[in-house]
């Protein structure tokens, strides 16, 4: 289908985009890669009066490192992020999640910030950001603010972003040399929306006990969630996959839709968390032996 008519604005600078958005507020939609908004406009699910195209704002396409975080500009395409050696080295969990995002052709245009701003419950980039304890950076004419990813996602397609704010960057904690990470998902076809996805990051002590652990699950509830793993720190690594996956499966409240029942999503949570934890353990042991 064709979208309803809209006013088109293409600012060159972030300050211009922010000023436009302050004027238009909730009657405007921000367009970057268009891989989520495009279908919504074409199917007339979204009918904004104005579309603000931020895809040519160069300041949103940067990658930088500051202290312990890697800061990715919201306008970076998923393909650009996938080609980045810096991201592969410093934020392996994101690099592992990206091949699951859509297809080659959609990653070439879809952006990191767009995926986070739209907050599809099954989207991989929001899950990776939640699982690694990342932060969303927002800008409006009133100023900037940072929100932990765990708080940013409120529900299906709902976030804490206010109508006059633009997601300008994402902050990803840098990995440690001895950390292991894994990302896995189940979809009907590779690149389709995930029915369920799991992400895991962990570090082990020399005596093979869990020192640091985080696990996230996406596509199961209406937003990506971090599993409460506080009871598992200090446990022997060998016990973790079975115990943690059972704990994750019993702690989720899954959605039900035409692609999967709640019971199936619970079953997938168990299987995927176990796979992700096992793969992260393998990587952590490999990294530890290399050091």
């Amino acid at each position: 289908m064709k979208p309803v008519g809209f006013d088109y604005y293409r600012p060159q600078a972030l300050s211009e985009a922010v000023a436009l958005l302050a004027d238009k507020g909730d009657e405007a939609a921000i367009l970057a890669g268009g891989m989520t908004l495009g279908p919504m406009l074409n199917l007339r699910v979204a009918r904004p009066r104005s579309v603000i195209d931020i895809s040519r704002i160069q300041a949103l396409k940067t990658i930088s490192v500051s202290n312990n975080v890697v800061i990715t500009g919201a306008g970076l395409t998923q393909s650009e992020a996938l080609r980045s050696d810096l991201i592969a080295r410093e934020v392996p969990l994101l690099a592992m999640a990206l091949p699951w995002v859509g297809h080659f052709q959609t990653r070439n245009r879809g952006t990191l910030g767009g995926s986070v701003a739209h907050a599809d419950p099954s989207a991989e980039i929001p899950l990776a950001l939640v699982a690694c304890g990342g932060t969303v950076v927002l800008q409006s004419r009133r100023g900037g603010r940072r929100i932990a990813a765990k708080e940013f996602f409120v529900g299906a397609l709902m976030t804490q972003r206010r109508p006059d704010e633009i997601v300008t960057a994402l902050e990803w904690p840098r990995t440690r040399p001895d950390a292991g990470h894994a990302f896995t998902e189940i979809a009907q076809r590779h690149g389709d929306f995930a029915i369920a996805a799991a992400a895991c990051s962990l570090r082990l002590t020399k005596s093979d006990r869990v020192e640091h652990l985080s696990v996230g699950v996406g596509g199961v509830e209406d937003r990506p969630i971090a599993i409460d793993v506080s009871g598992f720190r200090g446990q022997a690594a060998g016990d973790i996959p079975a115990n943690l996956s059972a704990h994750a499966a019993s702690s989720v409240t899954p959605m039900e839709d035409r692609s999967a029942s709640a019971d199936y999503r619970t079953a997938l949570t168990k299987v995927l968390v176990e796979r992700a934890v096992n793969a992260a353990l393998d990587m952590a042991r490999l990294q530890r032996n290399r050091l």
Partner: protein
Amino acid sequence: MTIVHRAAGERFTLEVTLNGQRRSGQAEPRMLLCDFLRHELQAFGVHVGCEHGVCGACTILVDGIAVRSCTQYAAQADGTDIVTVEGLAQPGALNEVQRAFAKHHALQCGFCTPGILCSVTHFLRETPEPDEQRVREMLSGHICRCTGYASIVAAILEAAATMSKGA
């Protein structure tokens, strides 16, 4: 301020480079890029299927990058360098990938083919010696209801081998 503004319903002249030639046509803000290319510039090799980014039929090269032309708007393409299936080889000739598609019967009805050929052009530039897994991952962004994909995979692998031998 350097903000480009086009009011809803406003007709404006849009210039792009299409298959190496400067071209211009009339667009309005809500016009899809695929519709601009077909209706205004007569690039009928751009096939329009699902119109929401899923089927891959409308895939073209914008500044060398394989992208959907149905989920971006003509206004966004202002000044870009666009290549469609018409620009992949000299008129009347086939390039290496197209020859391999013909040899392996990698198309039947041909509706998905222009999009796939554009994707393959970008894909092989980045991945000159792909294995079957990589080819299938790239192809997951296209829907073909005729071939079952096996012949498309064979054609791409053969074209890649021929091209990297020649390079």
